[in-house]
């Protein structure tokens, strides 16, 4: 299992960095994809158990899958603070029954088991990430990916994504009936995220980009005021305490991208809604320093049910409207499911080669 040596990772990393800085030296639009457990195991032909059996297998399989898909970034599947943080909390607090493993898909946590009662929250112990097997595997794999590709990895910190794993639906009731207990939980998750970040630095040796799954920032979940109270204020603290750039990910239907970017500094936003390209044209006008990663390329629409031509047209529309002037990456949101036809995924890189070489003329 050795990576494809024809892939020029140095050029990919430059592309990625130039997109964020808005540099005129960028040669083409970068391709950022979330190829996670389902896609990696499918492409490489191994189960999740084998994937996670050693950092070397994990790192090489992730690199290989991304090279096959012609992406410019290797994002390790376990890097984000959702279920994997749930696992760390479950192990630390003797709630291993909440953990569910799958052969060919991501690990998951039965929501609301770990912090079922208010007392569970009061007594909740913060995981020591240096003792977490899964996080240590991720740290070692991240280091190998960095050594082989030069890509410093994106580490996912998150508050609400973890709160949901721990508290489940009760978290939403708490917002109205007992906000103090919910804030106590958010505070504990914040402490855990800082411990995770410190361990990342110790083990990997280089600061990552922070890929922040800001799940609270969606109208279908809560008001913007509540999102700021239970997530936003903690992002500001994480930014202050880590001092690294943050990318905001939200794969929901009705995200508060414009609202949140008016309040908090992000170098990039990773989303696929709203599906109206005019929203994103307006976003670019209002937030010229924020890199758009995605826009209207949704994994459950053209990619899943369309043809390669449909995908090409969608990517073309996004590139011609958002890539001129830089600060744009093509990105299907969110995780690529295993049943997205491979010709459709490969149509993305073909479309980038066709329409995404700089200089790019603006759409009429």
């Amino acid at each position, binding site marked *: 299992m050795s990576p494809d040596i024809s892939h020029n990772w140095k050029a990919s990393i430059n592309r990625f960095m130039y997109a964020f800085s808005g540099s005129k030296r960028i040669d083409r639009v970068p391709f950022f994809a979330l190829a996670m457990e389902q896609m990696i195991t499918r492409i490489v032909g191994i189960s999740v158990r084998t994937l996670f059996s050693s950092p070397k297998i994990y790192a090489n399989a992730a690199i290989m899958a991304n090279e096959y898909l012609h992406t410019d970034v290797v994002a390790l599947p376990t890097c984000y603070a959702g279920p994997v943080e749930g696992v760390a909390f479950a192990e630390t607090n003797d709630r291993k029954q909440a953990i569910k493993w799958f052969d060919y898909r991501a690990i998951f946590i039965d*929501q*609301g088991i770990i912090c079922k009662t208010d007392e569970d929250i009061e007594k909740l112990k913060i995981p020591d990430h240096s003792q977490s097997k899964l996080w240590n595997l991720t740290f070692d794999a991240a280091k190998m990916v960095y050594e082989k590709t030069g890509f410093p990895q994106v580490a996912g910190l998150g508050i609400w994504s973890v709160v949901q794993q721990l508290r489940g639906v009760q978290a939403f009731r708490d*917002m109205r009936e007992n906000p103090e207990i919910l804030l106590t939980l958010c505070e504990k998750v914040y402490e855990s995220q800082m411990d995770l970040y410190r361990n990342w630095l110790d083990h990997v040796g280089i600061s990552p980009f922070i890929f922040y799954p800001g799940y609270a920032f969606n*109208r*279908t979940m809560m008001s913007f005021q509540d999102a700021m109270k239970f997530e936003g204020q903690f992002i500001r603290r994480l930014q202050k305490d880590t001092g690294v750039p943050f990318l905001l990910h939200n794969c929901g239907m009705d995200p508060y991208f414009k609202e949140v970017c008016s309040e908090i500094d992000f170098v990039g936003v990773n989303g696929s809604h709203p599906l109206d390209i005019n929203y994103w044209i307006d976003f670019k006008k209002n937030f010229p320093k924020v890199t758009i990663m995605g826009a209207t390329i949704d*994994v459950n629409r053209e990619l*899943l*049910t369309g043809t390669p031509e449909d995908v090409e047209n969608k990517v073309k529309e996004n590139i011609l409207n958002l890539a001129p002037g830089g600060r744009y990456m093509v990105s299907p949101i969110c995780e690529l499911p*295993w049943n997205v036809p491979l010709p459709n995924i490969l149509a993305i890189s073909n479309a980038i080669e066709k329409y995404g070489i700089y200089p790019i003329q603006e759409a009429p």
Partner: protein
Amino acid sequence: MQSDEILTNLKESIVKGNKEAAAEHTTRAIEAGIDFTLILEAGIIRATEEVGKLYEQMEYYLPDLLIAADAMIAAMDILKPHLKAIFDEKLKGTILIGAVEGDMHSIGKNLVITLLEGQGFEVVDLGTDVPPIKFVEKAKEIHPDVIGLSGLLTTSITTMRDTVLQLREENIDSKIIIGGGILSKEACEMIGADDYATDGWAGLYKIKEFIESKYKGV
């Protein structure tokens, strides 16, 4: 206290998500001799409609929906034994629901269940990470009017399709409604479900509309 005032108080306590007050006003309405169907329609169902309107106008969000639904259930728990004498329970419909295999997200599913129970529907919850065969077995046992397949993950579309295929292969003729923010008309067609809903509120309306039309005139 006048009947109108009691019913208004009941409605408002549900809209505000006050469980204790909702239970108290329901008891008061029964003790005042108000017709049970009037308590249901002018108190509880009217409150549901108002909450739905506030949600659509973006004055209410998921937390407000949940606590209003809890208050609705508190009121229904008191009223239900009295309604049973009037209605044949079967007319209200049975819904079998679960999050599909591989998906551990329960928030959307639990919201729909709370809303459906608040309307008096019988709901059988299979939980999360439910394999297709479990849906098939339970459907054969209880013959639900509607089967609700829930999922939040982008990857759940595949499992939803597998589940629908198995249900149809086993000749289960219940209406299948899929629910989740990931869904679209195209995805629904690919999955082969009868209908889809992208949030809990839409799910409630679609199920309610179907069951009401199914039993109309029965």
